């Protein structure tokens, strides 16, 4: 019987928090509650990144997901919501489709978990790098500079396209 360290306890707490928030997002019938649970899930994932010694990525997760994308989603919900709030995020009214969705998701998850559990994954007990942010910057602006530039152009095009789509075509 191996010792349970405080590190493991922290992982279990963060994992439970993340999974319960995700379940709350999917099972809630009110879309505003779903959005709030989604923000909790993003913060849980950020805590997982901190636990994995990826501090910079955790900060990016909080800034981009819990900050920007959640605000975007809540604005969209405010623009398109109408009617009874408790009926805004219902499941598929056809029970067959709903059950098929649950069945496929359950089957896929069970298959993935079994595959991961029964394959002995190799683990390296090495130390993480000291200056991870510096190394990341060196890779991003050195070896992977093309990916960096393509991501920048993609983001610009997507935002301009989103503005054009949301503004709509002017009727003559």
């Amino acid at each position, binding site marked *: 019987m191996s010792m349970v360290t405080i590190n493991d306890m922290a992982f279990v707490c963060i*994992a439970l928090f*993340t*999974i319960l928030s*995700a379940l709350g*997002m*999917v099972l809630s019938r009110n*879309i505003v509650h*779903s*959005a709030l649970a*989604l923000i909790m*899930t993003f913060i849980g*994932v950020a805590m*997982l*990144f901190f636990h*994995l010694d*990826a501090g*910079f*990525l955790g900060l990016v*997760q909080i800034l981009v*997901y819990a900050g*920007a*994308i959640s605000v*975007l*989603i809540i604005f*969209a919900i405010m*623009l398109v919501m*109408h009617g009874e709030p408790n009926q805004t*995020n*219902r499941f*598929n009214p056809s029970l067959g*489709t709903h059950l098929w*969705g*649950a069945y*496929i*998701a*359950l089957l*896929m*998850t069970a298959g*993935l*978990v079994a595959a*991961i559990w029964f394959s002995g*994954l190799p*683990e*390296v007990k090495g*130390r993480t*790098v000291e200056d991870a942010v510096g190394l*990341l910057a060196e*890779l*991003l602006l050195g070896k*992977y500079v093309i990916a960096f530039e393509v*991501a920048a152009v*993609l*983001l610009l095009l*997507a*935002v301009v*396209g*989103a503005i054009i*789509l*949301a503004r*709509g075509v002017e009727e003559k």
Partner: protein
Amino acid sequence: MIGLTHYMILSSLLFGIGVYGVLSKRNAVAILMSVELMLNAVNINFVAINRFINPDQVVGQLFAIVVIVVAAAEVSVGLALIISIYRHRKSVNLSDFNLLKW
């Protein structure tokens, strides 16, 4: 002892919850939110594999950053499309989006 296996199982569970949301919800915004959950699960996998298999490199974190950029682009275009369709149909229910059906 918490290792790579536990992180990958957690990420599979999150991905499965996202798949369930995509397949069983009717609200277009809720489906977009479930897709975001699936992308987050993929990011956990990238960072965990980087941490436990190749800890003296940060390539996995770099991949995760690129995934975050693509997810941000995807969610902005998706929400713009939903708002644009809502203006015509006055609904965000996916069953009402039959514009391409004759």
